[in-house]
């Protein structure tokens, strides 16, 4: 390897390892928290931290954009020194949210939520979204809050793949509200990657209609109670297009719909739920298509 090749490899590695995935996961958790607090404060004049969270989301969005600009600048430099031909490693952000943390997140000021207090709230909304009533066992014995959201996503994706709405409903009913709500955060980079694999290129604003036509029918059949605006917003975010302005939705809607949409895109790609394992081999992106 020549000195120049070595420099190029080092710069590519630096670019690939920029924390775009971590920032995306943080941003989605903040969005999810904002939705939840917005739901709590609907009739209260107290802001309960919502405006500050809005600012935090905005800063996270700017940080993500700056990281992408840094990657573009590194790519431009590589091209300028004659090393532009070698492709970078495929986007690895999708693995970030699916990794099981080594240690619990530090929580110096905030106690973990008591999930059983929100269990009935979560299951009621899951029932409204899926049309599937909670099993009797789930009503009396909510799962502890440390359930693995990545495992839930794989289960939901498996149910979607087999077109089994009852199974999707059962899997969603079986977890605590905090595990279910966390689907929003972990699915965001996964959805972008799957959409890119389906389209054959990084999703762009003009791909919204193609993704909608690829997924909307199946999402609707599995989540007959989900407001259409929720799917539209998710697809717009995947494509980095402006999200439609709309009525406020239930905090669970975005999480549940994102989980089902992940399963639908996986099914469209002919992949099974095990491909959502962060240790799974790198999936191949198919050539440009009219998905």
């Amino acid at each position, binding site marked *: 390897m020549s000195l120049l090749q070595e*420099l190029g490899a*080092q*710069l590519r590695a*630096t670019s690939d*390892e*920029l*924390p775009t995935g*971590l*920032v995306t*996961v*943080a941003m989605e*958790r*903040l969005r999810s*928290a*904002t939705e*939840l*607090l917005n*739901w*709590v404060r609907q009739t209260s004049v*107290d*802001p*309960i*931290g*919502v405006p*500050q*969270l809005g*600012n*935090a989301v905005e*800063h*996270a969005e*700017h*940080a*993500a954009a*700056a*990281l992408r*600009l*840094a990657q573009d*600048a*590194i790519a*431009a*430099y590589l091209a*300028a*020194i004659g090393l532009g031909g070698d492709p970078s490693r495929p986007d690895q952000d999708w693995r970030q949210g699916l990794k099981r943390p080594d240690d619990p*997140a*530090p*929580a110096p*000021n*905030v*106690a*973990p*939520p008591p*999930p059983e*207090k*929100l269990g009935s*709230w979560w299951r009621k909304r899951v029932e409204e979204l899926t049309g599937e009533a909670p099993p009797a066992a789930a009503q009396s014995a909510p799962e502890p809050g440390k359930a693995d959201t990545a495992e839930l996503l794989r289960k939901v994706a498996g149910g979607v793949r087999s077109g089994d709405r009852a199974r999707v409903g059962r899997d969603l009913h079986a977890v605590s*509200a*905090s595990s279910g*709500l*966390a689907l929003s*955060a972990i699915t965001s980079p996964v959805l972008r990657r799957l959409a890119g694999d389906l389209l054959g290129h990084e999703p762009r604003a003009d791909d919204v209609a193609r993704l909608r036509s690829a997924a909307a029918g199946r999402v609707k059949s599995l989540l007959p109670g989900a407001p259409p605006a929720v799917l539209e917003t998710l697809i717009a975010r995947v494509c980095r297009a402006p999200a439609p302005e709309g009525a406020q939705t239930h905090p669970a809607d975005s999480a549940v719909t994102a989980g089902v949409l992940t399963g639908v895109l996986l099914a469209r790609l002919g992949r099974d739920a095990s491909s959502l394992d962060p240790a799974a081999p790198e999936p191949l992106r198919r050539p440009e298509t009219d998905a």
Partner: protein
Amino acid sequence: MASVAEVRAAVDAALQQVTESQAAIQAAREKLGEAQQSLAAALDGSANDAVGAAHASLSQADQQLEECLGATLLAIEQAQTYTATL
């Protein structure tokens, strides 16, 4: 019908998400710092415009993450003040 316990649990669940986002932001800032050092070492002496742009973008990303973290701290404080009144 919602109870105070349910409202408090919902706020706590939201704050848990915020706390987890803080952990992700802190981890992102650490990785960003490593990337800045690696880039500075590799591109020391370069006058290429793209190199300057890369450095500037990474600094801006770090600044935005710092401000993001600050905003989450304020949000937590305000939400906790609210739940204390319930």
